[in-house]
């Protein structure tokens, strides 16, 4: 170190010029530092789960939705609807916006007499002012699952305006503009902003605000502390300059390497300033001490550097190790924080050991007034005296109490829970959380569960599997509003064919698909060539454990209960007992899900239900009431007058034809095709003879019409067998009756999809269909985060403990001694986790870092203490005196250092993010724990074991440091002595 010191002094000008140059260079880099407020960009981009999640977010526009919630006494008033209309129009005009959906322009397709009506739920340009009309719209909107809880809250008080951004649009700019417009156009309304682009705006603000507010506070604190300790301007300025320079270098390096600042790495400057000052302080303190004894400037500097260089280096390296141990964390922000703070500590170390001596060599030696400050901390010394007396007397008690504490801590550990939901990181009064809470209460949450579907999405078998999955999802706690293209097809089928099911043919699906293809919502549900799509649902919980549970249940369902290989067979296959049993199972399962979703866990006679379902399948003949027949008659008349391929102009013939058809229906079955052809030929007149093809075509249309009428009636009749099995409440629920009908509709279908294995077993063949489901969405990412949190924690602990133990073992030249010396740190880490467990503080991505930092910084205390102890042992008469002397010097320094570092960390309780707040006060507490470990537990342990683990102390220290015999303080002792 002496040689280094000489070089430093010889090259002092070069060092200063170089430092200035580097600082300028990094300051310039710093101007290019970018803030990254996209939480998702923080995830490990190589993880397949993240790759899938990102692809889905991009392909289905999920990450491009900005939501504005507007709360009113009632959404459905002229005034409010006008405001919504204005907002909708204004948002759509913002450059970068692709489309806007709100109650005043959402498409509404409804079935009306004789056809369907395509319209808007509310015509934005023509909002009715009649209260009755508004009430009607309200009732309608709240009765439809398409709108209720999706675009309007079930109580009709909150509505959501969804803005989809163009892919290349700057999300933050557009989101900021949306917020500005919303505040301007909707004063007096409570507004909520949700969705990734909106969150980015707020996170960006938090990152910058935390920096702007916390950095000055920590600087002020440091200045105060430095002034209190040194009472000189150089004592304040030199360590301050050291931390500022090293912070600029570290952050400038970060910017130069194009690493963006994000929600955890933004506390880097605060931490660097808090802990990086220690090295400069040690250097300066030692220099001043030396200067009181010797007068020559350069020699004093050289000696100071030579004496404290190694300990400062050791302390810095161990602290860096603590930070580096976070590298490889799942959150990139944590890795960046660890690596660059570690580097920053390294910079602080280098600057303290080079720049401070270089600057000092240009300054005149300090005046004598330093003496006064040295005589000040008598109170602390007295406290240490008392402490050592106590430790000597009560060593055993202390060790025993520690053992009890360890026991209690271990007992509490299982209570430690993890929290990875990034939403939970924001305080409850932030816009993000308020909006989240609102979405959870009124719209089923905002965390999307996304399940990717791969296959021919226009195939009925695939769509039916999607519907089945949606029914299952609805039964899970916290999960609601599953949505996919299958729902849109069902919705269209309801409008065209009056039942909410997937048509049984691919053509049928394609016909309905054609109609909705241009809807912008399609882009969010299915890819361009319909080979992949997603089933989305909302999750209304932020608790990690619940999220993990839900993801696992869905995963189990997809693995165990979904067939990926299906075969499309004709309905005649129901005749096979195995296939029929499969059909019954399928219907039963879906009915039970419907019941569970609507009524929770209720007792049901499933045996009777199964029998009822089977009876519906056996219904081959149905009865029509006179009223039914009347309606069918009218339908047939319109058919012949308007739609039929054949044109029969004579009214009497049409009437006779209709009459014959009704007579046939009364027999309970659809008349055969041949009979229909004959009938049409008989009543069709000349045309029928001239154009036999038209007769054939008409017969086919007619057959379809009659079949449909018959099928409707069959299910209606079947319902009477099944419905009595349910509670009165369910029976009265119209939606449930519809759902039941739709479940039973399976028996009516001409084509059915069965698992390939069943088809093979039953000896039937058909068109093979493949479908694959892969779970994605934020919840799966949370599960990965949760898994990796533990992994990161263990990794960081192992690295930090391993390296630090190695250093201690080397320093003490004793395996046992090293392990003993590390025990205060182990105790500290254990206490930290126990504290978290008992105070219900979760392990999250910030609190995960505490142990590593505690080891990195806290180990210094053990190093200093044991080293001083060794030195004193060789000069003091007894163990007791050794301890007294060690505590009075090093012990005092440890306490002061721990207090000042803790103070720096405590500043973080003023940060906006909850994990950072917890991280701040917990790390501060941990600093005190580790100081306590070093000055209480370790001495007690030494007393109890008679310091045997330290090896043959006196001999080793005599040979190692002969000059200490003469009463010269060791370097360790002195730095610690001046460490205030």
């Amino acid at each position, binding site marked *: 170190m002496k040689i280094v010191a000489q070089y430093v002094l010889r090259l002092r000008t070069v060092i200063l010029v170089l430092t200035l140059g580097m600082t300028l260079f990094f300051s310039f880099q710093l101007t290019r530092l970018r803030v990254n407020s996209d939480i998702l960009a923080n995830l490990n981009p190589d993880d397949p789960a993240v790759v899938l999640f990102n692809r889905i977010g991009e392909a289905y526009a999920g990450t491009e939705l900005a939501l504005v919630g507007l709360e009113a006494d009632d959404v459905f008033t002229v005034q409010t609807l006008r405001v919504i209309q204005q907002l909708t*129009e*204004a948002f*759509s*005009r913002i*450059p970068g*916006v*692709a*489309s806007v959906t709100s109650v005043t322009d959402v*498409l509404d397709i409804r079935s*009306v007499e*004789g*056809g*369907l*009506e*395509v*319209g*808007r739920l509310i*015509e934005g*340009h*023509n909002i009715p002012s009649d209260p009755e009309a508004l009430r009607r719209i309200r009732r309608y909107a709240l009765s439809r699952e398409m709108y209720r809880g999706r675009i309007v809250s079930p109580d009709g008080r909150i509505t959501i305006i969804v803005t989809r951004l*163009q*892919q290349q649009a700057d999300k933050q700019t557009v989101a900021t503009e949306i917020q500005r417009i919303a505040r301007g156009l909707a004063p007096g309304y409570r507004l909520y902003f949700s969705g990734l682009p909106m969150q980015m705006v707020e996170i960006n603000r938090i990152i910058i605000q935390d920096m702007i507010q916390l950095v000055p506070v920590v600087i002020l604190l440091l200045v105060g502390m430095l002034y209190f300790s040194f009472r000189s301007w150089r004592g304040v300025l030199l360590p301050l300059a050291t931390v500022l320079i090293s912070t600029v270098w570290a952050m400038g390096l970060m910017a130069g390497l194009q690493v963006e600042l994000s929600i955890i790495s933004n506390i880097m400057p605060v931490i660097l300033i808090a802990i990086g000052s220690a090295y400069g302080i040690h250097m300066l303190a030692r220099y001043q001490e030396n200067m009181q004894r010797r007068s020559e400037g350069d020699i004093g500097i050289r000696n100071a550097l030579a004496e404290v260089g190694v300990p400062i280096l050791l302390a810095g390296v161990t602290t860096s190790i603590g930070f580096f141990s976070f590298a490889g964390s799942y959150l990139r922000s944590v890795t960046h924080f660890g690596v660059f703070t570690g580097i920053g500590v390294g910079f602080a170390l280098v600057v303290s050991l080079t720049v401070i001596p270089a600057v000092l060599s240009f300054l005149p030696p300090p005046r004598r007034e330093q003496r006064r400050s040295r005589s000040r901390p008598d109170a602390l010394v007295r406290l240490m005296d008392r402490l050592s007396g106590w430790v000597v007397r009560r060593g055993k008690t202390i060790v025993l109490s520690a053992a009890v504490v360890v026991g209690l801590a271990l007992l509490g550990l299982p209570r430690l829970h993890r929290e990875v939901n990034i939403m939970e990181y924001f305080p409850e009064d932030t816009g993000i959380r308020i909006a989240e809470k609102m979405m959870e209460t009124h719209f089923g949450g905002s965390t999307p569960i996304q399940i990717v579907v791969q296959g021919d999405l*226009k195939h009925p078998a695939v769509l039916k599997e999607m519907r089945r999955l949606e029914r299952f999802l609805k039964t899970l706690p916290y999960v609601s509003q599953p949505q996919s293209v299958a729902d849109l097809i069902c919705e269209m089928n309801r409008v*065209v*064919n009056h039942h909410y099911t997937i*048509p049984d*043919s*691919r*053509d*049928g699906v*394609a*016909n*309905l698909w*054609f*109609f909705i*293809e*241009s809807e*912008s919502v399609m882009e969010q549900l299915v890819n*361009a*060539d319909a080979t992949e799509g997603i089933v989305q649902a909302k999750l209304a919980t932020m608790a990690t454990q619940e999220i993990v549970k839900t993801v696992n249940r869905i995963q189990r369902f997809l693995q165990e209960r979904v067939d990926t290989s299906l075969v499309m067979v004709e309905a005649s296959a129901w005749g096979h007992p195995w296939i029929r049993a499969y059909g019954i199972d399928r219907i039963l399962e879906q009915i039970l899900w419907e019941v569970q979703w609507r009524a929770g866990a209720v007792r049901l006679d499933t045996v009777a239900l199964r029998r009822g379902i089977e009876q519906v399948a056996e219904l081959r003949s149905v009865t029509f009431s006179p009223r039914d027949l009347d309606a069918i008659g009218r339908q047939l008349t319109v058919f012949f007058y*308007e*739609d*039929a*391929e054949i*044109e029969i102009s004579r009214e009497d013939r049409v009437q006779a034809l209709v009459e014959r058809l009704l007579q046939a229906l009364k027999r309970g079955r659809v008349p055969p095709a041949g009979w229909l052809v004959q009938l049409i030929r008989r009543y069709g007149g000349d045309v029928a003879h001239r154009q036999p093809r*038209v007769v054939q*075509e008409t017969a*086919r*249309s007619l057959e*379809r*019409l009659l079949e449909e009428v018959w099928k409707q009636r069959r299910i209606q009749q079947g319902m009477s067998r099944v419905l009595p099995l349910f509670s009165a409440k369910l029976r009265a629920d119209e939606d449930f009756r519809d759902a039941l009908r739709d479940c039973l509709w399976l028996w009516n279908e001409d084509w059915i999809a069965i698992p390939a294995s069943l088809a093979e077993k039953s000896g039937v063949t058909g068109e093979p269909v493949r479908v694959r489901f892969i779970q994605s969405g934020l919840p799966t990412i949370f599960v990965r985060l949760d898994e990796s949190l533990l992994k990161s924690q263990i990794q960081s602990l192992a690295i930090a403990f391993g390296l630090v133990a190695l250093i201690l073992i080397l320093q003490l030249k004793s395996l046992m001694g090293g392990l003993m010396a590390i025990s205060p740190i182990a105790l500290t880490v254990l206490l930290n986790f126990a504290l978290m467990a008992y105070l219900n503080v979760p392990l999250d991505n910030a609190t995960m870092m505490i142990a590593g930092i505690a080891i990195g910084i806290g180990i210094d205390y053990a190093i200093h203490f044991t080293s001083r102890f060794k030195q004193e042992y060789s000069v003091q008469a007894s163990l007791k005196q050794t301890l007294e002397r060690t505590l009075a010097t090093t012990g005092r320094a440890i306490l002061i250092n721990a207090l000042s570092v803790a103070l720096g960390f405590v500043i973080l309780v003023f940060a906006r993010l909850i994990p950072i707040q917890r991280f701040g006060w917990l790390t501060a507490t941990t600093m005190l724990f580790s100081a306590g470990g070093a000055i209480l537990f370790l001495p007690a342990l030494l007393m109890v074991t008679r310091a045997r683990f330290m090896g043959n102390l006196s001999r080793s220290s005599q040979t190692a440091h002969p000059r200490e015999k003469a009463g010269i303080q060791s370097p360790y002792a002195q730095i610690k002595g001046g460490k205030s």
Partner: protein
Amino acid sequence: MNRIQLVGILGLLISGAVLQAQDATAILSRVDSVINAPRDQKATMTMILVDKRGNEKVRQAEFMQKGNEKRILRFTAPADQKGIAFLSLPNDVQYLYMPAFHKVRRIASHVKNTKFAGTDFTYEDLSAFSYSKDFTATLLEQTADFWILELIPRPGAQKDYGKLKMWVRRDNNYPVRVEFYDRAGNLWKVMERRRITRVGKYWVAREMEMSDLKEQHRTIIRLTDIRFDMGLSDKVFTRRYLKRGK
């Protein structure tokens, strides 16, 4: 070539005097009459839908129109949409035929700005309409080849557009480019009519392209086998015919 130039120069000389009097309203009504000139027409329509990622979807349909209010469009490709047909009749009466269900359904629509069948054309863009009825025109500029008009929706006309800018060819009054602006004045959509040729008595654009700049989606429509004034019967434009096809 020479003759065209000569006509052009002559035209310029003559119109020069009456330039100021060249009323934008008159130009617009000539546009209307050029577009709606044929008594009836039949063509094969190819629609190419291009999304923002460049994915293309191609559809083909048989198209028939009588006057400017009766129209039938029957899809022939892709295979799974074959047979789907639309019938538009006066007074916003529309019917849809879905062959998979053998069903004709009336579509009552009071939303004209709904996109038509996945294209970037709305029902309104496609409906036979007269610009003069819905817009007032002012002449912004004239170049050697074009009149450039600004069209503002007439009060009461329910339009999503704030204004239109239209390039009208001076030689045949054909509108070759229309820019649609939203109510804030942002350019929203652009329609271009290309490959304008004369078939019999009429001018016709064999290619039309509509680009939606917000949605970043565009549709190209190409017309082939165009025939005019075939004397199409009213019976063609009925529900029965819609279903029967051919």
